[in-house]
């Protein structure tokens, strides 16, 4: 067991997999000698060799396409897209190819690639270093979508993703790489290493895909969140006296519907929180599902707290970010209904 921040946990997951499986290799822009702009692959090239962890040309579509080809050969590529905002050039290869390959070839070929990418705002990245495009992938049958919220899950989920035979979009909430974020940007962040319960095994373990985690049990309202927003939601709850149940989805596709419905059947109320723009965000699907599955248990409208339907503005990062105040407002509103 060790204290790790999320970067170290992700690095450890890759290190473990490079060691265990010669078919695992890692590549992406600046991930080789340099170790990645967020340093997630630091030291891996030195330890495992030039061919196991290397740089690529700046062509996201080429990165994904070659990973699909490698998957067809029998490798298990782990690729990094430097920021989630830069996935779009690779969208065709992901949607038309990686996602469809198993189906269209009747299982003859498949794409066991893992695409790691930092996402989300809160680091003054402006509109092209802050986006949360997860809903653009949950709509695509054939892709899995995973978003961890802490070092233990990050490592365990990443190992699961790498070992998974389907293509996995692995979104890393960059705002919490170093420590959980309450949403109060004016307060200091406590690094992950300082948390007594932050124990990450050094070896191999998995956190299964498709299983949510109840981060705080409660009876009055269910809050559905993932990534950074899990911590913002927890902070918001702590500032109220509402007995909220906070669920960390961890995997958006496939979704752990049972944990969600059980919670809502208990609480009768639901607030969905994400950083992505609201319209057609993943919260829409969650809202629809909750409504379909728990209609007769609902005592108040399901509310969505999300990024505004605008690009992520550089100067107004904190006015844009769906912080604790907006979550608390929503909780209050749902309790009053």
């Amino acid at each position: 067991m060790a204290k790790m921040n999320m970067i170290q946990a992700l690095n450890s997951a890759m290190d473990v997999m490079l060691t265990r499986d010669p078919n695992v290799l890692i590549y992406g822009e600046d991930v080789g000698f340099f170790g990645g702009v967020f340093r997630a692959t630091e030291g891996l090239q030195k330890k495992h060799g030039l061919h196991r962890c290397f740089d690529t040309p700046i062509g996201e579509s080429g990165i994904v396409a070659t990973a699909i080809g490698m998957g067809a050969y029998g490798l298990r590529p782990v690729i990094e897209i430097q920021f989630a905002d830069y996935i779009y050039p690779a969208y065709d290869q992901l949607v038309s190819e990686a996602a469809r390959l198993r189906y269209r070839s009747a299982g003859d070929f498949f794409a066991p690639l893992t695409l790691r990418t930092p996402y989300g705002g809160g680091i003054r990245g402006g509109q092209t270093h802050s986006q949360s495009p997860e809903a653009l992938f949950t709509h695509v049958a054939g892709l899995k979508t995973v978003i961890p919220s802490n070092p233990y899950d990050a490592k365990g989920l990443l190992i699961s993703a790498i070992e998974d035979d389907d293509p996995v979009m692995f979104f890393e909430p960059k705002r919490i790489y170093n420590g959980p974020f309450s949403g109060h940007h004016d307060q200091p962040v406590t690094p992950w290493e300082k948390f007594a319960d932050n124990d990450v095994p050094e070896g191999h373990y998995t956190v299964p895909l498709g299983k949510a985690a109840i981060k705080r049990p409660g009876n009055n309202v269910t809050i559905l969140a993932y990534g950074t927003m899990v911590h913002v939601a927890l902070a918001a709850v702590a500032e109220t006296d509402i007995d909220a149940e906070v669920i960390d989805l961890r995997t958006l596709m496939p979704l752990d519907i049972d944990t969600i419905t059980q919670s809502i059947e208990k609480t009768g109320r639901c607030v969905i929180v994400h950083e992505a723009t609201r319209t057609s965000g993943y919260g829409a699907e969650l809202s629809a599902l909750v409504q379909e599955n728990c209609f007769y248990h609902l005592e108040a409208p399901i509310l969505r707290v999300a990024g505004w339907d605008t690009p992520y503005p550089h100067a107004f990062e904190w006015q844009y970010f769906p912080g604790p105040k907006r979550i608390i407002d929503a909780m209050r509103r749902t309790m009053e209904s």
Partner: protein
Amino acid sequence: MTKSAPDRKNRVALSLRIPEPRQRPGDLPDFSGVDVSKPGAVPRPGINAVAKDIGDMAYKLIRVLDNDGKASGPWDPKLDLESLQRGLRHMMVTRSYDNRMYLAQRQGKTSFYMKCTGEEAVAIAQAAALEREDMCFPSYRQQGLLIARGYPLVDMMCQVYSNERDPLKGRQLPIMYSSREFGFFSISGNLGTQFSQAVGWAMASAYKGDDRIAATWIGDGSTAEGDFHHALTFAAVYRAPVILNVVNNQWAISSFQGMAGGDDATFAARGVGYGMPGLRVDGNDFLAVYAVTKWAADRARSNLGPTLIEHYTYRAEGHSTSDDPNLYRPANEAKAWPLGDPIERLKQHLIALDKWSEDKHTSLEKEILEEVRAAQKEAESHGTLGGDKMPSVKTMFEDVYKEMPWHIRRQRQEMGV
């Protein structure tokens, strides 16, 4: 906002060039611009030649067979008789298969079909020049690869019919074959994607210290997709053991190859700009295609990296069963194509070698037709599109993921299957 030019400056007005083919319906075909240089004239460099140094080859046309069926020059692969006859047979089977399936579509037995008529030499000669273990990432006009590798015609047909024996379970449009066993990657409806995927496969093979190489095919029109650029860039950077083939059949549906920039520079020339040899070959010349492929394969196998081959050929028929080429090009262009027909030309070669005759050819044609008909009969015994014999509806929900998630399971239940 825009001031017109004469108001402002003493300069010529700009104008936009929209490339146009030289002939349209009603015009006489005119291929006077086509290079029909003397067979045997282009030298054959060593496989370790540096791209830049042989850059001019991208503008020449490698040919072996002349109009009388005689082979000459340094690119003559000097194939043994058996190989020549096998090549001829495979091309003829391909054509016969295409004709039957085209007809089957016209008869309403399936929704769609695409022929490769006039381009058979590309897939067949290349399959012969590659090893059986090498991996192919084709476009939809290389059905010849499967035929040359002995994939059962019946299975191909069952795919076209989306019937109960369709290896792809009715999921794909006709002709979008897939066979890992035969080293034939699942064909995509999205143009170009296979080109850069093939580079990834080749990188993987090199990564593992394997000795298998990859080959991939793209149409002239499709070279405009980004995947083409990514393939060339990644292949050059990692020196991937891959053969990148551009099948320049002059047309992309209704757009002539100039619309993809084929008139400004040859497609082979693109390769040189990325640092890999770009060779241009008479795509209707079985021997030339074979030889050039062998050269590229030897290069790849010697860790010398990728080669771009432009196959200069002509799409003799419509784009697909959904297309009528008479709406956009002269009716009889195919006949006027100066590089001829690949089957005719190999036949002539064998006759010139005194190993073949028109009679033998005719009877082989008949024999093949019987073979194809028999296969068709068997395939149709397993059903045709929309008939009674379909894969189980249940399979519609399978293989989206390795394991079926709850939401798809629920949908299957909703469907009642």
